């Protein structure tokens, strides 16, 4: 991805950095060397940079997977999708037999009832697995859980439970489905499990293993880790300081992460500045702040401009939710902006994007600053006019291209309608209007994998196989640049990573085939050997 030298024969590494790129003869000018032929039959490209994921991507693998699609775990084992209720029950029964402590709650994740034909999975199905062990199944959406009767018994959930979200059958008995956090939290042992897992060292390792398996050498954990909480920084340091930890991690400070009260102003500013100035190491980076402004499009909670949603569920209020009061955003953005931090703001809807763009403009008027790289995250419905404005203000986009494949059909028919679905996740518009951009998976919301995400941006094929918005397709070269330099730029790391050139860190994705040799439709199917991070090779699928 170095425009001055897009293709080369060999690469020389000294320590953790690239000494040079070129022919073996060119590189011999650096003197004595050892020639490795390990990757003679592979293709090295700049390590992929995934600028929007969450450490939950590692934490979920503490629990068995019962989702619809096949999914590979961090050790490289593929969990076959559970495509019927019977297969969900079989999978869980198998896992139940492996648990020694009869009191331990069986927690599973990834259930997506939209895809399961016929009746809905409820407690009576889970009771086939055990009537004495509590069972808690998280749905893929993160908004729901289904539990068995024993879990309800232990949690005191019965026909008289008044909490909204405890779903009940026609006779008034709870059916095991718990909707939204207040109801899920009643089943405390299960609900708390993923939060606990997220803080564990193993989750941090599995997160990096998952990255390694798909050629990603730098991952951003966007506002998930509560860095103000004691021990969390140390836990990241301990993991990333280990030479065998297979990724660099950018841990973004989450704005909603409240700090100590003994501050005159926004306490997260000083935390983010201190982390950036004092705590960075080669494999642990800071300097990014994450804000969340609206909800999701498929959940009908994104703030989208008129004419809003085309086919919302009954009782929907018409538009989505704000997670930050819109008139407060300029002050919040300004506080980070003035401290020299880079703000990445979750905006799925175009109305949310507009509020963020306006807030950045206000911050710039108050405190002129060049090269801030403030980034619209998800950026799904951002319009051409907004991209022009973002270019004028020096803003970046990180586009949620995986939505085209995963929910594109639903966006066309249910959420925003054909016309706006065709221009969603508009990489070609960003490119044309001169906005620097990247693409992302938001793992674990969709599986991490930049070859797949690039494939989405290049082909725009939905799950049903239609091309959604052919005008917004980009070339393979443009997509791969978005997945490397584009992401490195918005994380403020493009001086160190994102391309293969002398002086940069020796981070490579090691592929079995050349992405420029295969057809664009086959991009996602290229096998990944693994990665090289700072000159150290990490083979995919290993422990």
């Amino acid at each position, binding site marked *: 991805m170095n425009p001055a030298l897009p293709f080369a024969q060999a690469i020389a590494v000294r320590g953790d950095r690239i000494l040079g790129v070129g022919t073996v003869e060119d590189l011999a000018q650096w003197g004595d060397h050892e020639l490795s032929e390990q990757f003679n039959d592979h293709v090295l490209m700049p390590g992929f940079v995934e600028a929007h994921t969450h450490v939950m991507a590692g934490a979920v693998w503490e629990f068995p997977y019962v989702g619809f699609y096949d999914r590979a775990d961090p050790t490289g084992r593929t969990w076959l999708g559970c495509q019927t209720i019977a297969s969900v029950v079989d999978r869980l029964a198998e896992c139940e037999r492996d648990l020694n402590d009869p009191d331990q709650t069986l927690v599973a994740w990834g259930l997506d009832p939209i895809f399961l034909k016929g009746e809905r999975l409820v407690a009576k199905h889970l009771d086939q697995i055990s009537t004495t062990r509590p069972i808690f199944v998280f749905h893929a959406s993160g908004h729901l859980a289904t539990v068995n009767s024993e879990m309800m018994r232990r949690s005191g959930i019965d026909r*008289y439970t008044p*909490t909204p979200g405890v779903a009940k059958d026609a006779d008034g008995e709870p059916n095991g489905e718990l909707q939204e956090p207040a109801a899920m*939290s009643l089943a405390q042992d299960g609900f708390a499990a993923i939060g606990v897992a997220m803080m564990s060292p193993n989750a941090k390792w599995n997160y990096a293993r998952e990255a390694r398996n798909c050629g990603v050498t730098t991952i951003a954990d966007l506002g998930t880790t509560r860095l103000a909480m004691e021990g969390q920084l140390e836990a990241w340091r301990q993991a990333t300081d280990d030479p065998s930890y297979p990724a660099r991690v950018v841990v973004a400070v989450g704005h909603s992460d*409240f700090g*100590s009260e003994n501050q005159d102003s926004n306490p997260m500013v000083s935390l983010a500045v201190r982390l950036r100035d004092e705590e960075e190491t080669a494999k642990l980076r800071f300097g990014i702040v994450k804000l969340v402004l609206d909800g999701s499009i498929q959940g009908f909670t994104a703030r989208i401009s008129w004419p809003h949603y085309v086919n919302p569920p009954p009782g929907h209020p*018409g*538009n989505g939710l704000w997670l930050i009061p819109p*008139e407060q955003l300029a002050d919040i953005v300004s506080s980070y902006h003035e401290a020299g931090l880079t703000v990445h703001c979750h905006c799925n809807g175009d109305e949310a994007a507009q509020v963020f763009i306006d807030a950045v403009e206000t911050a710039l008027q108050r405190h002129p600053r060049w090269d801030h790289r403030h980034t619209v995250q998800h950026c799904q419905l951002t319009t051409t006019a907004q991209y022009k404005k973002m270019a004028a203000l020096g803003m970046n986009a990180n586009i949620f291209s995986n939505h085209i494949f995963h929910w594109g059909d639903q966006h066309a028919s249910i959420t925003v309608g054909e016309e706006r679905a065709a221009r969603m996740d508009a990489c070609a518009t960003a490119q044309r209007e001169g906005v620097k951009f990247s693409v992302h998976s938001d793992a674990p919301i969709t599986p991490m994998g930049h070859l797949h995400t690039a494939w989405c941006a290049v082909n725009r094929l939905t799950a049903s196989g239609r091309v959604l918005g052919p005008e917004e397709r980009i070339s393979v070269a443009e997509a791969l640049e978005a997945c490397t330099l584009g992401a490195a730029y918005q994380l403020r790391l493009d001086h160190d990573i994102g391309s293969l050139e002398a002086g940069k860190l020796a981070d490579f994705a090691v592929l079995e085939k050349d992405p420029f040799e295969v057809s664009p439709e086959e991009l996602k199917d290229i096998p990944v050997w693994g990665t090289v991070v700072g000159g150290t090779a990490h083979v995919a699928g290993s422990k």
Partner: protein
Amino acid sequence: MQPSEGLMEVSVIGGYLGAGKTTLVNHILRQASERVAVMVNDFGEINIDQSLIDSRSENTISLTNGCICCSLVDGFVSALESVTSFRPKPTRLVIEASGVADPGAVAAYGHGPGLALDAVVVVTDAFRLCEQIADPLIGQTVVSQIGAADVIVLNKIDLADNLTAVKTELAKLNPDALLAYASHAEVNLDLFFGREIVRTSDPTSHVGKFESRTHESSQPIPRAALEALVENLPPEIQRVKGIIRLAEAPHVAMVFQLVGRNWELRALADRNNSPDGNRLVVIGPKGSVPMEWDNALRSGK
């Protein structure tokens, strides 16, 4: 009154940014006559006289009047756990929702173990309300919040020059909620702490002459009989609350709540602390509280 020994009543305070939620929390901390625990997003906004502070730790401030202030640093569920484990146990939990939150969704937590949801109080800015409702960005958020209220505190009435329009708007958005008028969020706490009631019609009389009567009986009451009692309630009665047992499910203690014209019946979450029999408090203007409830409850008819 407390529904039962050891149970914490929950009030949720919602309302849009700038309406005066934190001012109300400060007012509650100063005026409370019971042990109140408040959960707030940000300690920085809480304005407590240093002389009132008994002790403080990273996430909690204990006041000399027995109240406790707890921050949401470590998340909602964990703050809830720490509040419920305080000893001596607070009798009331006040949760300050964020300025864009749906207070109804926060109130869903008020049914958890050891808790009994009392009321959702939504603070509104009388000066800016009409403008906010018409705002294309925040209008829907403000309207949804008002819709979730049991009690609406119409704050900053000293600044508002269009009070009639504001009242009309609120009556349209949530005709069932109680309306209390305030400036600087100074409202009679008994309003939403369930002791007395402020009438909705007259903004000048903040506290009218009210009486409350407690009705007690031991026999479970048939649901139909209860519905008939509510049906025949004089219109002046604005608040009834307490714990009863239904003849249809006598082993479960139920919390009965009537605010305005809305009423609900739900199981008491804390089974270990449920009292026997029926105990209802009826509150209304003097002379309006019926005597015959005692008999009706007792006979179960």
